[in-house]
């Protein structure tokens, strides 16, 4: 059997994935040493990210090649807007972030750049390119969660809950579903289109890395 397209993409972005695994934010969640202010910055920005992520999933649903993908992507958009965002609100509350504070938050430069890239690719790219841009978030979180889970449990229960969520089998199944979708829609593409898919994939991987960096550095707009 030929190597999976998503395996090749993963290899093309391996330096970025390695850097992500070693990022102080990720290591800090794993050993519990992460300063809570940095984590709170992540929670607030990720909440904003989710709204735009749902936009991207909806564009994906609108442009899906078949009913199965269309339905699954619509379910994901709904789950993001309803379940995941309300989980985030509950989670934020544990860190003393009120619902009003979440709604007031404005996107930091990296959050803005990443979501703009995702929505732009979803609006103007090919469908395989769109899935290429979508996949690193699901797959990356699943890998990060599983790696942290293997590495032991931080003392702070809130960090443990975070790890458990992304290390869950449901999350792994979601990442696998998205991989299969990309393997399927990317099959037999001409080299020029494959390059565009790879470019979208690697760019999203880089933004995933930058998103941790944004939280770590408490990034805001300098002017």
């Amino acid at each position, binding site marked *: 059997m030929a190597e999976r397209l998503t395996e090749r993409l993963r290899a093309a972005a391996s330096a970025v994935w390695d850097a992500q695994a070693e990022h102080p934010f990720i290591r800090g969640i794993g050993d519990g040493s992460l300063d809570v202010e940095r984590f709170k910055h992540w929670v607030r920005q990720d909440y904003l990210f*989710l*709204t735009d992520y*749902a*936009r*991207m999933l*909806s*564009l994906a*649903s*609108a*442009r899906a090649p078949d*009913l199965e993908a*269309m*339905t699954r*992507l*619509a*379910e994901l*958009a*709904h789950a993001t*807007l*309803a379940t995941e*965002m309300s989980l985030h609100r509950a989670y934020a509350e544990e860190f003393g972030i009120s619902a009003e504070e979440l709604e007031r938050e404005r996107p930091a430069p990296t959050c803005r750049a990443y979501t703009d890239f995702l*929505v732009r690719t*979803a*609006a103007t790219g090919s469908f395989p390119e769109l899935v290429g841009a979508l996949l690193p978030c699901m797959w990356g979180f699943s890998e990060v969660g599983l790696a942290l889970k293997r590495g032991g449990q931080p003392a702070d229960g809130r960090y443990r809950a975070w790890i458990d969520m992304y290390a869950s089998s449901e999350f792994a199944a979601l990442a696998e579903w998205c991989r299969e979708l990309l393997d399927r829609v990317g099959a037999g593409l001409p080299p020029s289109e494959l390059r565009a898919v790879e470019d979208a994939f690697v760019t999203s991987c880089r933004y995933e890395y930058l998103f941790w960096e944004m939280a770590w550095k408490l990034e805001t707009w300098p002017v």
Partner: protein
Amino acid sequence: MSIVHDLTEAHREEWERVVLHPFVLELGAGTLPRRTFAAYMAQDYLFVDALARTVAYGIAKAPSAAEARPLAAFLQTLLGAEDDLFGRVFDELGMPPPAEARPDPLPVTARFGRFVEGVGRRGTFEEIATALYVTEGTYADWASRLVAASARPDDALYRSWIDIHADPALAELVAHLGGWIDAAPPGREPAMASVFRRALRHEAAFWNAFVPSRAKMRRDHRG
């Protein structure tokens, strides 16, 4: 001052012709031939694909998660419960499953589908809300009028089709859509009026393709 109220009143006659169309009345009375219902369902199934994509564009273009959420829930219903109902109806009517049958769209279905999906792709959020207000508002209206008039056809399939559209959840969505239309920034009314008028014409033409309206029969006679 309500934009949606003004739009509906300005097109009252056309609206009434749609919600009191002979197709609807025969459905309610149970006198609609099953062959006619089957032909309509096969075409409506094709239309729902375009409609679902339009809703997905609406989620992507929603001003915030507050508007996106009810649309995402509606999309779930369209691709979930309503899709299941289509399957059951096709089965009972002795037609192959929708995904296999793939009948060719009638010109009227293709035109209507292109229209709504075009509004989804190119239109503003308010224009999408307007198109959906007509497609969903007319269905909620005719179905709830049949229920209010105690029209309970013997045919269980017909009753299911009435009940799914008389569901309070659909009326709630229509109320949301009306609210979003009313919240449109100033100056958007002409574009919204154009979408409203055209959507209503497509609805009428769609019914007419299966059961000619009295007005159409008169015109055909004279012609």
